[in-house]
């Protein structure tokens, strides 16, 4: 590769147009002595003599390029993908093999951060009074009478029913604290994912007439269909009756409203505090909202995905006030918030954030878009 002289862009342009003065032509010829330079000049000539002016938005088709990109992506990710596929398969088989499941996202997001996101953990109180702390390790607990074995591996508890009739008035109580979330697989195949600061009471074995559970806080229900036994959820203020559906209930004691969002299936809400005798039928993507202060109820149409996003590892906010946003974050991260400027509470936000991101990152994002300033010291956020 020859080392050529320098020429200016304006000289080059003149050459392409064919407007060079004699002295300029001499300089340009000197530059042209290098092969790569000549080739480039030829390309420029061809480019400048194109017919018409193509529309840059349409000129190049992205589809082929996208396919190339996908091919590359798959090739590189194959290794990682295989590991994940294996892990997923093991989960489904419910094998009692000790597995420590590493949350990739959590690892990537929280390295070096002081305030860690929540994790899968809970406190389980058994019918016989034993209290068991469940975190990332595996345990197998068998109950007396052997009517049900509990398998625990990180993130969830599974009840295995050996088919025998047990006493249905024995209850377990699952307490999920601040910064925790937990999944419960009940003996009928129903899966309940319980969010932070919540409590779920449920019988060890469902009786033959109905499947009843009690919730305070927030949980996501994927109820296994059973036409013989309706699934009945009680919160302090409403009763929900389903046959087989997926829905989300947010019934925190310290919130003004109780919100039930239906993703799939059909639900009947009754036994509503302050509205005796009234029943509401809810359809998918509808939301039942009970205002506990005014004792009024309403049905809204919503995108259920927004209200169930937490089960897929995300916080989703849709035109939500900063106040409400922080209430959600507070349950997951160990923080408290002080509004030095009380107006700040009413600022609204739309967006999504992964739940397993460090709190510092989320605060950074907030600082970027908000008109207010967020400062974090120890675990206290001040807003001004």
């Amino acid at each position, binding site marked *: 590769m020859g080392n050529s002289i320098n020429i200016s862009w304006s000289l080059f342009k003149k050459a392409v147009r064919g407007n060079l003065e004699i002295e300029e032509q001499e300089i340009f010829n000197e530059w042209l002595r290098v092969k790569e330079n000549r080739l480039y000049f030829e390309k420029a000539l061809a480019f400048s003599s194109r017919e018409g002016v193509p529309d840059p938005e349409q000129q190049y088709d992205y589809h082929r390029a996208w396919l190339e*990109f996908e091919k590359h992506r798959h090739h590189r990710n194959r290794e990682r993908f295989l590991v994940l596929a294996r892990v997923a398969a093991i989960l489904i088989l419910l094998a009692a093999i000790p597995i420590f499941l590493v949350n990739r996202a959590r690892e990537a997001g929280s390295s070096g951060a002081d305030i860690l996101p929540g994790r899968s953990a809970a406190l389980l109180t058994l019918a016989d009074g034993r209290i068991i702390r469940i975190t990332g390790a595996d345990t197998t607990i068998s109950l007396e009478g052997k009517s049900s074995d509990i398998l625990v591996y990180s993130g969830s508890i599974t009840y295995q029913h050996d088919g025998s009739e047990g006493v249905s008035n024995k209850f377990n109580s699952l307490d999920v604290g601040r910064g925790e979330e937990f999944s419960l697989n009940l003996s009928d195949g129903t899966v309940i994912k319980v969010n932070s600061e919540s409590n779920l009471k449920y019988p060890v074995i469902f009786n033959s007439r109905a499947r009843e559970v009690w919730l305070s806080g927030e949980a996501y229900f994927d109820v296994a269909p059973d036409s013989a036994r309706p699934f009945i959820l009680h919160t302090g203020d409403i009763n929900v009756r389903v046959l087989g559906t997926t829905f989300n209930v947010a019934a925190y004691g310290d919130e003004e409203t109780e919100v039930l969002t239906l993703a799939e299936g059909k639900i009947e809400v009754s036994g509503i505090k302050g509205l005796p005798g009234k029943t509401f039928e809810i359809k998918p993507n509808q939301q039942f909202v009970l205002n506990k202060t005014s004792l009024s109820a309403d049905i809204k149409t919503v995108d259920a995905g927004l209200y169930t996003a937490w089960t897929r590892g995300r916080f989703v906010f849709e035109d939500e006030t900063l106040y409400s946003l922080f209430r959600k974050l507070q349950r997951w991260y160990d923080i408290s918030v002080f509004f030095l400027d009380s107006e700040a509470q009413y600022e609204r936000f*739309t967006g999504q954030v992964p739940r397993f991101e460090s709190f510092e990152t989320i605060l950074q994002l907030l600082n970027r878009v908000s008109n207010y300033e967020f400062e974090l010291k120890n675990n206290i956020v001040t807003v001004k």
Partner: protein
Amino acid sequence: MKKNTVGVIIASGEQTEIIPYGYFCLADGTPAMTKIPHDRGYFKVLYEQHYSRLVSFAAAFLFDSDEAEDVVQEVFVYMWENSGKIDITGDIRSYLFTSVKNKSLNRIKHLNVIDAHSDRVSAAYLNAGIIPDDDADEELLVSIAALISEMPPQMRKVFELHSYSGLKYHEIATHLEISINTVKTHISRGFVILREKLLLLLF
């Protein structure tokens, strides 16, 4: 209405809202982000929205469509593989165009054509249908402003609202009380004028 603070304004083609995960948006829907999401859907949208323009942009440096497509692909692949590490302070469009610019300039560095006033960078933006930002060549910006002022009144108004005030199509339509289609027509015709007249500056 806020002008795009980074300065590269896409003056033709719809600005759509992409809200990939990990982002908060201002009330007006503008996303502000820190990291590129490692999300296939997000990348697909990037391809749909920006691929063609990016190639046109690279081609204005390289004068070679195939090489231009290579450069753009390299940028996307790099972004994908380093998505956890790349911090974006502005918007993704600026990041994309800046990356393609840098890669393209790198490829032709050895040819020793010196562009003292970043003339060719501005010309490349125009080639991609974008009005270059404030630190482009003074002369060029003046020429663009002059050409816009010479446009027929309604076209000029539409152009100014879109390029300088950053209004979206339906906002311009409401503001001027015309249809969205009229807005789009004005913008594409206006850009044809700019490209035709300013391409004299490219060559």
